[in-house]
């Protein structure tokens, strides 16, 4: 048995802290400080409050801020700061209860509907629709008519009705999650629905809970204080934020100051909840976009020394060429001083397994390296033009007209919203091979589609990508690449996504295009069968280095490097007589 290289020792938990990075954003960070700070102050009200909340000081009513009363006193001479601290308690307890109910019902209803599907799903969705269509505030008032001045009953009702919105979000995430292969694998392992939901679904969904919870907290706060204002949530002398706004509103004409203090606090808290929610959502978005390298900073390109262009009649020449990527652990070299030349009219294979650097090499020739990658030494020449260090404008002109790309996934290279004809026309106009006249463009489209051996080119030109098969789409992508009559065509795994019978047709096409147009084709592939079928010469790459170079006959019949031999032996062959099983 083969030995397997040891996996990296570092043990990092892949679970992400949803708050990670929030301190780099001033607004949500400040909002989080406000939310946590006020909540802690309210919890420790008995320790922090300078006076009992109900103690009246009738000599100092409506006093305004003073040393004894930092935020002043109200109409009965009660300390405003103390009342705010104590008054936050029913509000935050109410919000807390509402959030608990909201998260519990939203999560469980959403997960049951999304995972179990079938009639469970239908019943739950119907219930959710009813919950969303009922005016929750009126129901809450009805509940308060029964449970008079019960803060808990009111907020539980609010949380329950609001949970319908959360349940819908969770349900749709859950429907996507249950299609994941690892959920199928768990089912095959014999796990029941309860275990699968607990082990595989729930941990994935909790991350999505945080944003709606913060946004809902802001709403719940507004509703709770609204009920307090109406005197429905907290019995009279006890302080509450809503009740304090109510008291202040009665003496608004005399002294508007109290309204600013109480109303301002509610506003600040409500706003902060919302800002934390928005901030967390932005962070989540960033994390989703910045998968892979944490660093987007480019590698400092040490100005490639002025290597002289080799004069061997090559249409494309690469000398002492290195490419590095910036990673969290500093620059990492992925292509290490490689040199090769491609002659006109030749199909040249760039062969290697994943991580060999073959695709990166191809993309760099087109100037299409990702932003954190750069050519760090050597240079590439297209005929007499030095590609390395060329300004982006020049590269844009060369791309398509001198050197073109055919990529692995034809469906991704085409826009699903436009017809084949209009997408080809765009490329034709850009490469300016013909005058912009309509029938000239149409004629060129027909010519290109015929050249990639598509029958009935007019019909194909009228269609949208989704109406055509993968093989036809790859032919169309090749036709697009041909629009500018390039000297070099870079084909990056052009048949990997295709069936073997379709692959044979595409390889035939590449060969015939080479014969007819005399262009050079660089075929990037991992498949030695494809190399044997199509290439004239090839290089074999392993971990960024060239280990073998020569004609395909040399490579297959006289391999010098052990890695090449191993590759050839590992490639299964339908023509080989000795099988593993006799």
């Amino acid at each position, binding site marked *: *048995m*083969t*030995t*397997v290289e*040891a*996996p*990296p020792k570092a*043990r*990092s*938990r*892949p*679970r992400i802290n949803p708050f990670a990075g929030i301190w780099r954003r001033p607004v949500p960070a400040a909002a989080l400080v406000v939310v946590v700070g006020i909540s802690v102050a309210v919890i420790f009200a008995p320790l922090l409050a300078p006076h009992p909340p109900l103690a009246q000081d009738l000599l100092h009513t409506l006093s305004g801020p003073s040393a004894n009363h930092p935020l002043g006193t109200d109409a009965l001479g009660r300390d405003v700061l103390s009342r705010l601290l104590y008054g936050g308690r029913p509000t935050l307890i109410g919000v807390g209860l509402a959030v608990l109910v909201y998260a519990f019902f939203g999560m469980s209803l959403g997960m049951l509907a999304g995972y179990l599907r079938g009639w469970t799903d239908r019943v739950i969705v119907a219930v959710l629709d009813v919950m969303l269509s009922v005016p929750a505030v009126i129901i809450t008032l009805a509940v308060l008519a029964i449970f008079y001045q019960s803060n808990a009953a009111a907020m539980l009702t609010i949380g329950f009705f609001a949970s319908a919105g959360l349940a819908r979000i969770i349900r749709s995430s859950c429907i996507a999650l249950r299609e994941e*292969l*690892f959920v*199928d*694998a*768990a*089912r*095959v*392992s*014999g*796990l*029941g629905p309860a275990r699968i939901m607990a*082990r*595989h679904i729930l*941990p*994935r969904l909790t991350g999505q809970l945080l944003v709606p919870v913060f946004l809902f907290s802001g709403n719940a706060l507004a509703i709770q204080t609204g009920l307090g204002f109406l005197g429905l949530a907290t019995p009279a002398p006890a302080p509450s934020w809503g009740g304090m706004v109510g008291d202040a509103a009665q003496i608004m004409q005399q002294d508007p100051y109290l309204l600013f203090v109480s109303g301002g606090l509610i506003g600040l808290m409500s706003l902060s909840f919302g800002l934390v929610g928005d901030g967390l959502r932005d962070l989540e978005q960033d994390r989703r976009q910045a998968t892979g390298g944490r660093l987007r900073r480019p590698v400092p390109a040490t100005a490639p020394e002025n290597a002289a262009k080799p004069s061997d009649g090559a249409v494309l020449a690469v000398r002492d060429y290195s490419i590095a990527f910036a990673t969290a652990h500093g620059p990492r070299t992925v292509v290490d001083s490689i040199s090769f030349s491609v002659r006109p009219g030749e199909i040249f294979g760039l062969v290697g*397994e*994943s991580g060999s650097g073959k695709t990166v090499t191809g993309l760099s020739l087109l100037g299409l390296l990702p932003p954190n990658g750069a050519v760090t030494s050597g240079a590439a020449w297209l005929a007499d033009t030095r590609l390395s260090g060329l300004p982006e404008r020049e590269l844009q002109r060369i791309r398509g007209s001198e050197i073109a790309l055919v990529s692995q996934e034809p469906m991704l290279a085409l826009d699903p919203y436009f017809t084949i004809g209009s997408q080809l026309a765009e490329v034709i106009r850009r490469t300016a091979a013909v005058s912009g006249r309509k029938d000239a463009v149409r004629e060129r489209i027909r010519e290109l589609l015929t050249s990639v051996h598509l029958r009935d080119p007019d019909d194909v030109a009228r269609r949208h990508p989704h109406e055509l098969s*993968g093989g036809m789409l790859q032919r169309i992508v090749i036709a697009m690449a041909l629009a500018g009559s390039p000297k070099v065509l870079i084909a990056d795994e052009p048949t990997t996504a295709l*069936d*073997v*019978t379709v*692959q*044979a047709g595409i390889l*035939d096409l590449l060969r015939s295009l080479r014969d007819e147009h005399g262009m050079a084709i660089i075929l990037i592939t*991992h*498949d*030695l*069968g*494809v*190399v*044997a*079928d199509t290439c004239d010469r090839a290089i074999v790459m392993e971990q960024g280095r060239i280990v073998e170079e020569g004609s395909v*006959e040399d490579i*297959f019949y006289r391999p010098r490097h052990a890695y090449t031999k*191993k*590759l*050839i*032996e*590992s*490639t*299964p*062959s*339908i*023509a*080989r007589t000795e*099988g*593993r*099983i006799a």
Partner: protein
Amino acid sequence: MTGTPILKVDGLAVRYPSRGFRKPPTTVIEDVSFEVGCAETVALVGESGSGKTTIGRAVLGLTPVSGGRVLLDGRDVTRLTGRARRLLSSDLQAIFQNPYGSLNPALPVGRTLAEPLLVDSARSRDEVRAHIAELLRRVGLPEDAADRYPPQFSGGQRQRIAIARAVARKPKLIICDEPTSALDVTTQAAALNLLSELQDTLGCAYLFITHDLAVVKEFAARTLVLQHGRIVEEGRSTDVCDRPQHAYTRRLVAAAPVPDPVLQRRRRQQRTDVEAATA
């Protein structure tokens, strides 16, 4: 084939309801019948859309069956659900194509490997841990892999983890759905060797679903060729690859490139001659 078949599929049909009023359902699989013997490897070959993956999923109970029967070890399991289906997991397992998707990235490898062992909860914690260590050793991974997470492993290593999960309870049949097509060729060869080794020691049968006839020839004893949801050819793998009978199989064989430039040139010439003659 030896003894009673471990898997017998009889007239299997899978149809999906079509969108739109009174449209006939879309047929994915129609009248597919085959058997897999004990400790045998049978390959199911077809191109995309041939329905090969659907057959595997239907046997596993992941896709509802519209007609026909699936017998596992002589027992009809076509429409088993709930607990009865879960108990099958000791006999019937699967290895999926994509080792990046088939392992939950947020669970340590050890917990993923413990899942098949949870079904009958008679094992103690230490027994489970010893069993997982044994599994990891068997697929050639270090013992401390149990504490790490799937993203820390390469594609080939992840597929070894998936293989370890599949053989955890010594099943009689493993459905392998393109288990090596996401891997590099050198890794693929190692994974196929591992599967052969495990078959020798554990005596499990494989239903090997693939698009690659070349792999089939070296790995499977018998081959079924599938086109548009029907079996068009069936026989010993060497016969199917060397002397294909059905026109579609001939096209498949002719189109498979071989890693030998001179031989491939000759094969290509034959193929284009046939294509020119039929066109």
